[in-house]
């Protein structure tokens, strides 16, 4: 803060200068300007500022000192009760871990589920190409594959009897085999 030592006696200290003297920004008292020695007006104004600061600090003390000894004891007892409810000291980390472990476990399970989802989706849906096909189309495809296989002489999978049912014909009743 600029201190105004070069002032004439009639050139009074500004509010800024008074503020800087009453509440020094650097936290250490500023050098008092010589003008204060000559000017009772500025000297009084600085006293106003300092009084205001001191009064503000003391006002807090007043509020606290209104509390009686019994009231303070009751507040302290309340703190001690809260502490007794806590149990043994030094359990801050245990308390934190008690919360952290389930949270970490939940996150791990979630991460596994999310990362496993595409695999399971692949298992349940063998071909994305058939995703848009109707059941009728899929049955047609299966029948055509079987016919193609048998036409090429491959009867290893049960021969004609294992043909996929004709999609146009309803399933025969139970116990009635194909001939």
């Amino acid at each position, binding site marked *: 803060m600029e201190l105004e030592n070069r002032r004439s006696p009639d050139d009074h200290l500004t509010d800024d200068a008074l503020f800087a003297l009453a*509440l020094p920004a650097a936290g250490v008292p500023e050098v008092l300007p010589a003008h204060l020695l000559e000017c009772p007006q500025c000297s009084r104004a600085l006293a106003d500022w300092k009084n205001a600061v001191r009064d503000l600090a003391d006002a807090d003390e007043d509020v606290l000192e209104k509390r009686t000894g019994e009231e303070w004891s009751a507040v302290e007892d309340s703190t001690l009760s809260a502490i007794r409810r806590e149990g043994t000291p*030094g359990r801050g980390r245990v308390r934190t871990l008690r919360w952290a472990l389930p949270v970490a476990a939940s996150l791990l399970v979630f991460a596994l589920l999310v990362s496993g989802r595409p695999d399971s989706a692949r298992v349940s849906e063998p071909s994305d190409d058939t995703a848009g096909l109707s059941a009728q189309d899929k049955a047609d495809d299966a029948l055509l594959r079987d016919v193609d296989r048998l036409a090429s002489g491959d009867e290893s999978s049960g021969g004609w009897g294992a043909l996929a049912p004709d999609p146009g014909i309803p399933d025969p009743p139970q116990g009635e085999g194909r001939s």
Partner: protein
Amino acid sequence: MIPRETDPGVDEALLIEEIRAGNTQGFEYFVRQYQRKITRVAYRLLRDMGEADCAAQESFLRAWQNLNDFREGSTFETWLTRICINWCKDRLKRRRLVLYFHQTADARDDETGPRDTALDPDPSPERRAMSREIRERLRDAIETLSPRQKTVFTLKHFEELSIPEIAELTGLDTGTVKSHLFRAAHKIRERLRDLRRKA
């Protein structure tokens, strides 16, 4: 100002060791010794007696829960005050958020009473009014500081702590404390710029 006297007959470090070892009743000494001091620090920052009580109790609870983290390099009082200041700073931050969203200032007690008891020896009503105006404006300006600035400013000018003491309590280095102090003073001065001295 924070009185730093402790009971000379009690070795606090030893007492903490005993508490850790199972003599939990020993913690009562700390509560009886420091509750008022801690409440005052909290009140300076929060300016609400209910919240100050809450801050003090929470500080003791945190100290209790984290007693194993207490290191002998520091005193219990300093450690406890630091816990309390951190709690208050969090509280002030939350309060500012609430203010931001609701755009309503906390109802401040602008009661007269003890605060009117001016220390000014001059009884002139004009000067008394001036001093009161400065005080009120100053109080309002302090409320506009950030939690950290307010903490540093309050500890310096109202608790009259030295900059190294503030640094220890807030966990900041002394340069940062000075910087916050400077910014706080600058901000308050800006807020009081329109205050004209009544000669």
